[in-house]
């Protein structure tokens, strides 16, 4: 890398200019990655916190929480089925509630049987079922000034709830989760309809490793997915991840085009010099290796700088924004950024092979 390094030093102005732009793209990438992870977490943390391995949806519901309704027969029968350790109904609906002080509070109401394996363990206050209308709320709701003993009313269905406990129940669809006894949730979701008491949204399952999922589904008219597959069923999840992925893909492309364009100009400017080097007997291989090494150093150093700045900025982001930097996604996005940059550079650098050493003899040719 005799030539590559000396060129980097000699033309540091030009290289730092593109380097700066690549670093900015990398910074954006880091922030975006943190936002993507944070946002996704905000959408499904409540599902991730479930002590279940699988969720069974109504087979006609297309694995969607709002459209799935399962019956008591189904969960009682599933609980007895081979390979099933635990099966419990889970109600799942988003509501707007109001506090005593008339403060609006959005909540994702999860209805569970208080004695099932799904019931949350409150850090403060009483567990589910201690009071008939008692709910266990997420810390995020408590942070809005709601205290144990306060009332939460869901006006659309004319239902009053009492805050019984507080637990790290997470969020669902960007809304904090509140656990209610199943019968309370059934009232909220179905009103006084006669068969409300036999219904839930999905069935949370704890399956043995070798459980025959297809067999269970065939026997019960359900569609069972793993807990992480169920994330796609939560509102907005697929759209959000796709949007983020599209922005990221655009940034990868920008990086490739940016680096490519720079190295096209750089290679064209150095045509005479490349001709001289070839006339002195430099092989294409050596020149390509130098140029590719040079672009690799440039891109990697710029990405590293962008990573540092992005992480720093990320650490300054407040609680209001769902932001979570995680090593895996950040590093893989940086890796792809470098890779795409290299592809762009490779395309530009190819034209080294087309330079004729004859041009070393003079500009007239």
């Amino acid at each position, binding site marked *: 890398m005799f030539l590559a390094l000396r060129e980097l030093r000699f*033309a540091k102005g030009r290289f730092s200019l593109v380097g700066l732009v690549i670093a900015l793209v990398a910074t954006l990438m880091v922030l975006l990655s943190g936002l993507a992870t944070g946002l996704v977490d905000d959408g499904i943390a409540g599902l991730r916190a479930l002590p279940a391995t699988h969720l069974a949806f109504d087979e006609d519901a297309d694995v969607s929480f709002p459209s799935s309704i399962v019956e008591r027969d189904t969960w009682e029968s599933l609980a007895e089925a081979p390979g099933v350790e635990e099966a419990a109904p889970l109600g799942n609906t988003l509501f707007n509630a109001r506090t005593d002080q008339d403060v609006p509070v959005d909540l994702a109401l999860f209805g569970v049987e208080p004695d099932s394996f799904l019931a949350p363990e409150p850090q403060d206050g009483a567990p589910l079922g201690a009071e008939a209308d008692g709910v266990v709320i997420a810390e995020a709701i408590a942070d809005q000034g709601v205290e144990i003993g306060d009332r939460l009313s869901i006006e659309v269905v004319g239902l009053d709830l009492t805050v019984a406990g507080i637990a790290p129940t997470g969020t669902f669809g960007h809304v904090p989760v509140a656990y209610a006894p199943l019968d309370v949730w059934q009232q909220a979701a179905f009103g006084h309809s006669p068969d409300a008491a036999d219904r839930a949204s999905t069935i949370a399952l704890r399956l043995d490793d070798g459980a025959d999922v297809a067999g269970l589904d065939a026997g019960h008219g359900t569609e069972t997915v793993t807990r992480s597959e169920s994330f796609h069923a939560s509102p907005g999840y697929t759209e959000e991840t796709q949007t983020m992925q599209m922005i990221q893909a655009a940034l990868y492309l920008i990086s490739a085009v940016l680096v490519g364009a720079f190295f096209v100009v750089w290679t064209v400017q150095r045509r005479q010099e490349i001709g001289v*080097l070839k006339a002195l007997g430099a092989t294409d291989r050596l020149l390509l290796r130098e140029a590719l090494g040079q672009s690799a150093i440039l891109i990697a150093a710029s990405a590293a700088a962008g990573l540092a700045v992005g992480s720093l900025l990320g650490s300054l982001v407040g609680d209001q924004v769902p932001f979570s930097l995680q090593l895996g996604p950040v590093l893989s996005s940086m890796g792809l950024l470098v890779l795409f940059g290299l592809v762009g550079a490779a395309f530009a650098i190819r034209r080294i092979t087309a330079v004729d050493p004859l041009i070393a003899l*003079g500009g007239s040719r």
Partner: protein
Amino acid sequence: MTLRLEQVTLTHGDGDEQVHALDDVGLEVQPGELVAIVGPSGSGKSSLLAVSGALQTPNAGQVEVDGVDVIRASKAERARLRRERIGFVFQADNLVASLTVLEQVLLPRYLQGHRPGQDRDAAHRLLEEVGLAHRATHRPHQLSGGERQRVGIARALMNDPALLLVDEPTSALDHRRGLEIVGLLARETAAHRVATIMVTHDHSMLEHADRTLAMEDGHLTRAH
């Protein structure tokens, strides 16, 4: 014999547009001999260097450099020949902008696969020979035209070439500097026992040459 050209013809274009850059050219140069080539612009002087230096393959004829048949050689073999047996001093834009004077001189060795810096002593000796040891850390843009040509000469000698090809080394220089450069070339040709061809259109630069040939319309003849 270091360089042997026999009945070499190089044409550009075709049909009515055809130009004979070289027309039935024969030339032999021995080690330690400085051959000057003069001729008007467009007469084929650079073409002669291109063919002799394995940069361009003629349409017909024989080219042999240091025992290697250039016509038969592959592209890779020609590059290797240039790397190991031929030194070039080009008319202009001879140097690599990002390298210091010392690094310019080390470059041929690097292209041969040596570690950079391995041949520092040899490079320094060459820089002393061309009187530029004190500018070793300077870059081309900090040098005068004559100094650049001298760096080019030192670099061309670094791979101990059998054949040294020099294109218009004095065109950018005043008369006195020009003579200095040609004198330097003559001394280096003798000291390193290299076969040198120097192209020039300046007839006042010929006193150091062992032989002077004239190029006209692609024909090489004895100078009058």
